[in-house]
């Protein structure tokens, strides 16, 4: 089956290994655990500084109801969906198109175009803060959904193109030759051959792009201002301002905000099918 990094007969080494893994896991999950616990606490507990102890009272329902009743989280949540979903769809569509062309067609300048897509990823995003903000202001998109959608699509497509190009390039050549010999146009080949076979890649990419765009805080701060446009990340920090010490409510809102990427993962999981091209070539 799997290679065993530590032989079964080395009892001490195995014990140390298990202990180490457990320790790292606990350390890693501790903040999350604290946030979850805080979202259960009452305001009094938070005020009394009881962050790690047993909650004096479980305010689970109250806290989560408060998130919707007393804050603008519902609005922020909708804003995030309005920004993220179209962005992810556009990233997937564009990167499939660019990936297909860059991996399957040879034309003058194809390597340069590919290099630009990849190279763009190496630019630190922060150095583009002022230019992008000025650009959005001058084209009249500042503080609109379009500003964030446009930026995320433009920026995510670079990495996504690299990902899709390599995935499509790994598909067997003969499939494309067969499709061409049978008279399929490039569009037909893309829709009937490529897309069904790159489903696992599209699912992985969808999760990556969704998580990145959903969790983005930096560009939300730079490109939005008003509550009607702000996504959840920027909204959460607003919450902090309005409810200076209501960490129980902030924690509940945080957990609520963290749900969509998790849901996304489970939605996409069924598309992770290995060996999709099995049976295509040879045996």
């Amino acid at each position: 089956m799997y290679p065993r990094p530590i032989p079964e007969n080395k009892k001490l080494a195995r014990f140390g290994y298990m202990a180490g893994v457990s320790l790292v896991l606990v350390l890693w999950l501790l903040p999350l655990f604290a946030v979850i616990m805080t979202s259960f606490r009452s305001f009094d507990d938070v005020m009394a500084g009881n962050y790690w102890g047993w909650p004096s009272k479980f305010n689970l329902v109250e806290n989560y109801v408060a998130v919707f009743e007393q804050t603008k989280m519902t609005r922020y949540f909708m804003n995030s969906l309005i920004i993220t979903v179209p962005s992810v769809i556009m990233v997937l569509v564009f990167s499939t198109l660019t990936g297909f062309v860059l991996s399957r067609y040879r034309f003058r300048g194809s390597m340069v175009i590919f290099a630009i897509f990849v190279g763009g990823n190496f630019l630190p995003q922060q150095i583009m803060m002022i230019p992008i903000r000025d650009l959005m202001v001058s084209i009249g998109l500042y503080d609109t959904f379009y500003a964030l959608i446009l930026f995320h699509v433009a920026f995510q497509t670079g990495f996504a193109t690299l990902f899709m190009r390599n995935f499509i390039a790994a598909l067997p050549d003969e499939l494309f030759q067969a499709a061409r010999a049978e008279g399929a146009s490039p569009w037909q080949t893309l829709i009937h051959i490529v897309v069904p076979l790159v489903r696992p890649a599209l699912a992985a990419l969808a999760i990556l792009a969704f998580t990145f765009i959903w969790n983005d805080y930096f560009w939300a701060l730079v490109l939005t201002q008003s509550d009607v446009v702000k996504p959840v990340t920027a909204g959460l920090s607003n919450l902090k301002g309005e409810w200076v010490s209501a960490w129980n409510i902030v924690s509940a809102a945080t957990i609520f905000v963290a749900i969509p990427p998790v849901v996304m993962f489970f939605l996409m999981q069924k598309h992770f099918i290995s060996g999709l091209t099995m049976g295509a070539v040879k045996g």
Partner: protein
Amino acid sequence: MTVAAQNPTPTNQTNNKDKIGMKSVELTNVEKHYSGFHALKDINLTIEKGEFIVMVGPSGCGKSTLLKTIAGLETVTSGTLTINGRDVTKEEPGDRGIAMVFQSYALYPHMTVGENMGFGLKMAKRPKAEIDAAVKRAAEILRITEQLDKRPKQLSGGQRQRVAIGRAITRSPEVFLFDEPLSNLDAALRTQMRVELSTLHAELGSTMIYVTHDQVEAMTMASRIVVLNKGAIEQVGSPLELYANPINHFVAGFLGAPRMNFFEGRVVTVSGNRVSVTVEGLPELQFADIADVKLSVGDKVMVGVRPERFKTGEQTGDASFEAKIRLIEHLGRETILHVDGGPVVTTGSDTGTQNITVQLGDVVAFSNGQSVKVSFDLSDAYLFGPDGKTITPAKAATRT
């Protein structure tokens, strides 16, 4: 048979009988350069309707490139290609009226067998009833009707190759192109599929062009064999014709397994149409009836004898030598001896044995290390000139 919808030329309407002797595929001065590499050199070939053409040659000889050029998957640098009298040099593969079967099957893994077979027609936006009928017909011909709802990965190699062939049949192409379709199958299945493909060819009557490196496939299936070497056509002809009368040293060495034995020799006398050649380890060989002798004394020549033309023991031919058996291969129906002594075999570029190969049509009670007298008739020997061309007169393709 070959009523392909995508070809509007009137030749389609004619029936099968009128097609005999009609040109199906014609290549004229076809050249192909890859970045700096001359892949195809001045290819001229006319293929008639209903022919089964097999293209053979060593790896890298350009046979697959030539096939892909006919398919349209590769472009030509210069020259023209016509299919059914229509110039298709610049046409897309899908418009040429061809169908291709790949060595690796190239089935679409996410589609069922039926969807795979109907894909080409679906892309051409044919009505569903027509697609279903074509798929059903092809499936019946290939006896894969029960597999139509399965996926390629549920099939065995032989079944997959049948599906790939079925996919080609469904489109009723003018020309079938096969790129080493059987080389991924095991030996028994290969023999079976060979027979099935020949039967299929007889049933459909379509033109088929088949690339292989397997001599047996070439010899058994072809109506004509095209031998390619380094991007150029060496010789075209029926299998037995090529076997009996190879035009040069290359074709002689390429066709036939075990391979022809070649001995290096030197011309000692030339008189009229007679040439005497000495080969180390053999008596002087006198070749007669040589038309248009261009040899002169001292020229280096090559003498070739097919393994099955050697005789051993009591039977003696025109030239004989004593040899020692190094290895015996008993194949049941025949025996192959690798013998040392007498003349030295040159292997040419091919890495082969230095021993002489003798093929006997019997089970023979020889043992390793034994001495044996080997001989052959001069009428069975080939003489190749310094340029590799065959000099000896043509031999009958079939013998009694």
